[in-house]
C-alpha cells in the first residue's frame, strides 16, 4: 500500500515526465487499435472490391480441350447441373458463390452470339447470408451484351427471339471490352431447353477465398473430391490481384505498428532513465533507511506498469474513436463494418503494460544497482 501511495505521489509530483511517457503509450496503442479496427473494415472492403472483379475459379468438365476452351470461352463438353447443388451443400469449402452456366455459340440474324444460361447463384450453406454475385435473371427475360444490343438496336423493355423463344430485354449491359459484349444471358433452364440440354451445364463459376499463396492444388483436391470428373482452373490475374493487395495492406500495417511500438518503447526507456537520474538522491536515502532492491524496483517498475495500463486504456478508446470517425469516409462500401474491436481491449491492457515494463527494466536495474554511498557522499 505504501508503495502505491509513493508511486502516485511521485507521479503527481513529476507529472509532466509521466505525461510524456503516457502520451507515447496512448499514441502507440491508439495507432495499433485504430489500424487494426480500420484494417478489419479494410479487409471487408477489399473483399467487397475484389468480389466486384468477378469470379476467380472455373470448374469445367474433365477432358475439356483447354485450347478450345480459351478460344471459345466455354467448354465443349458438359456435366450435370446437380454438381452446383452438391458443391453448395458441402460444408467447409474454401470457395463459394457458385453459379452454374451453360454456353453455346449460336447464330442470330447473321450475328454470332454467345448464348449463356445462368442459374441464380447458390451459396455455400455456411455463407447463406452473403450478398449474391453474378446475374440473377428471371425466366422469360434476358440481359444483352453491349455489341449485340448495338447491332440489333435492343433496349430494355424490347424483345428478342432466340432459337424460337421470345425473351424480354431486362437489361442492356455496359461495354466491357470482352466476350461479354456478344453474350445474351438468360435463365439457365430456358437455355437448357432451347439447346436441348436439360439438366446439363458446361461450367461452374466460383469465388475462391482471399487466401494468400498458391492454394490451387489443395483447392483442386477439395473440389474434385466432391465433384469427380471435373477440372478446376484459376483465373490467375484476378486471384493474384486479390492476394497481392491484401498482403501489401497487411505488410504496411505490420511495419507501421512495429515501428511505432519500438519508438514508443525507446521513448519510455529514455524517460525512465531520466527519472532514475533525477531520483538518485531519493534512491540513496531510501537505501540508507533500509529499503531493499525489491522496494526500489517496485517503485520504478510500478511506474512503468501504471503508465502502460493507463496508456492502453486511453489509447484503446482514442484509437477506436479515430477509426470510427475516419473509417466511414475511407470505406464507402463497408462503412457499416467499422465497429469497435472490443476483443482487442484485454490483450492491449496486458501487452502495453508488459512492453512498458520491459522498456523500464534497464532503468530499474540501474536504479537498484546504484551505490547509495556514492550518492550520499556527493553532497
Amino acid at each position: 500500500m505504501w508503495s502505491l501511495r509513493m508511486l502516485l505521489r511521485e507521479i503527481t509530483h513529476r507529472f509532466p515526465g509521466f505525461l510524456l511517457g503516457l502520451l507515447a503509450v496512448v499514441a502507440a496503442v491508439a495507432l495499433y487499435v485504430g489500424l487494426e479496427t480500420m484494417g478489419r473494415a479494410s479487409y471487408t472492403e477489399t473483399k467487397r472490391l475484389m468480389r466486384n472483379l468477378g469470379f476467380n475459379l472455373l470448374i469445367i468438365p474433365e477432358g475439356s480441350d483447354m485450347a478450345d476452351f480459351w478460344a471459345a470461352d466455354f467448354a465443349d463438353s458438359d456435366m450435370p447441373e446437380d454438381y452446383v447443388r452438391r458443391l453448395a451443400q458441402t460444408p467447409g469449402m474454401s470457395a463459394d458463390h457458385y453459379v452454374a452456366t451453360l454456353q453455346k455459340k449460336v447464330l442470330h440474324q447473321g450475328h454470332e452470339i454467345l448464348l449463356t444460361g445462368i442459374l441464380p447463384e447458390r451459396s455455400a450453406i455456411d455463407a447463406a447470408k452473403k450478398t449474391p454475385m453474378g446475374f440473377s435473371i428471371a425466366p422469360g427475360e434476358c440481359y444483352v451484351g453491349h455489341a449485340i444490343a448495338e447491332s440489333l438496336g435492343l433496349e430494355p423493355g424490347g424483345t428478342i427471339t432466340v432459337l424460337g423463344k421470345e425473351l424480354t430485354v431486362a437489361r442492356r449491359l455496359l461495354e466491357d471490352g470482352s466476350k461479354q459484349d456478344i453474350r445474351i444471358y438468360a435463365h439457365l433452364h430456358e437455355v437448357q431447353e432451347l439447346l436441348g440440354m436439360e439438366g446439363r451445364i458446361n461450367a461452374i463459376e466460383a469465388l475462391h477465398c482471399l487466401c494468400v499463396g498458391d492454394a490451387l492444388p489443395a483447392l483442386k483436391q477439395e473440389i474434385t473430391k466432391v465433384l469427380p470428373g471435373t477440372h478446376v482452373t484459376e483465373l490467375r490475374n484476378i486471384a493474384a490481384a486479390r492476394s497481392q493487395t491484401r498482403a501489401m495492406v497487411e505488410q504496411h500495417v505490420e511495419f507501421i505498428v512495429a515501428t511505432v511500438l519500438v519508438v514508443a518503447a525507446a521513448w519510455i526507456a529514455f524517460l525512465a532513465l531520466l527519472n532514475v537520474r533525477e531520483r538518485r538522491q531519493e534512491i540513496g536515502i531510501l537505501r540508507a533507511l533500509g529499503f531493499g532492491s525489491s522496494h526500489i524496483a517496485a517503485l520504478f517498475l510500478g511506474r512503468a506498469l501504471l503508465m502502460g495500463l493507463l496508456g492502453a486504456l486511453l489509447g484503446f478508446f482514442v484509437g477506436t474513436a479515430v477509426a470510427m470517425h475516419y473509417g466511414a469516409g475511407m470505406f464507402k462500401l463497408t462503412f457499416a463494418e467499422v465497429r469497435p474491436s472490443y476483443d482487442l481491449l484485454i490483450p492491449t491492457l496486458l501487452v502495453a503494460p508488459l512492453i512498458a515494463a520491459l522498456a523500464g527494466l534497464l532503468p530499474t536495474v540501474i536504479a537498484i544497482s546504484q551505490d547509495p554511498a556514492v550518492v550520499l557522499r556527493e553532497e
Partner: protein
Amino acid sequence: MTVIRLDNITKRYRGRRGEVIALDAVNLAVREGEFVAIRGPSGSGKSTLLLTIAGMIHPTAGRALVSGTDIYGISGRQRARFRAANIGFVFQMFHLVPYLSVLENVALPTVLLPGRLRSHKAHELLERFGMAERLDHKPAELSTGERQRTAVARALINHPRLLLADEPTGNLDPDNSIQLFEYLADFHRQGGTVVVVTHDPLAESYAQRTLMLSAGRL
C-alpha cells in the same frame, strides 16, 4: 556494552589518479549511551567512516560490529533490515523525499518494520519538534531548520539504538544548529548512542568524546 567496534577498517578506492585510501586501518569502539563527535578536514574520510558504520560501504579490509552484529558478514537484505531497526541517519542535505508530506517522510521508515504504518507516532514526534502545523507540507515548503527537524524525527521514528549524523548542522544557522544538537543530546540522555561527524565546534560542548580523523586515520 560496545555498540560500535571497528577493527582495522581500511577502505581503498581506485580512481583515475590511482588508488585513494579513505580509511586506513581505523580502530574504534563506542560504548552504548556514548555521544561521540568525529572532526576532521574535508576529504579526511569522515563520511566514509560513518557510512561504513551504517553498513553502506563495504570496507576493503577489517571488521565492523554494530550491536554485536558483523554487519558485513550478513546479506545485503539482512543488513538493510538491521539498519532499519537499529540505526537512525541524519544528513547534511536532509534528503527528504520531495513528493511526500512531512508526516509521510517521518513515517516512511516504519513501513520496513513489522506492524502498520505508524503515522500517529510520526505525528507525536513532529509535535515534540514543533512541527505540528507543518504535517501536510512538502519539504520544498519548509525552512532549512524545519527540514532538518523533519529529518531528525525520521531518524528517530523506529527507536534506533544508534544515531549517526553526517554534518547535520552544515546548512543551518547558529540557532538551528543549537536546536539540532539539543535534539541529539535529548536522544543521548534517553540512553541512545550518537556518533556525529562534523566541522562544527559546537559539537564538542555536547559530545563526551571528540575524535580527530586525518587522512583516513583516527
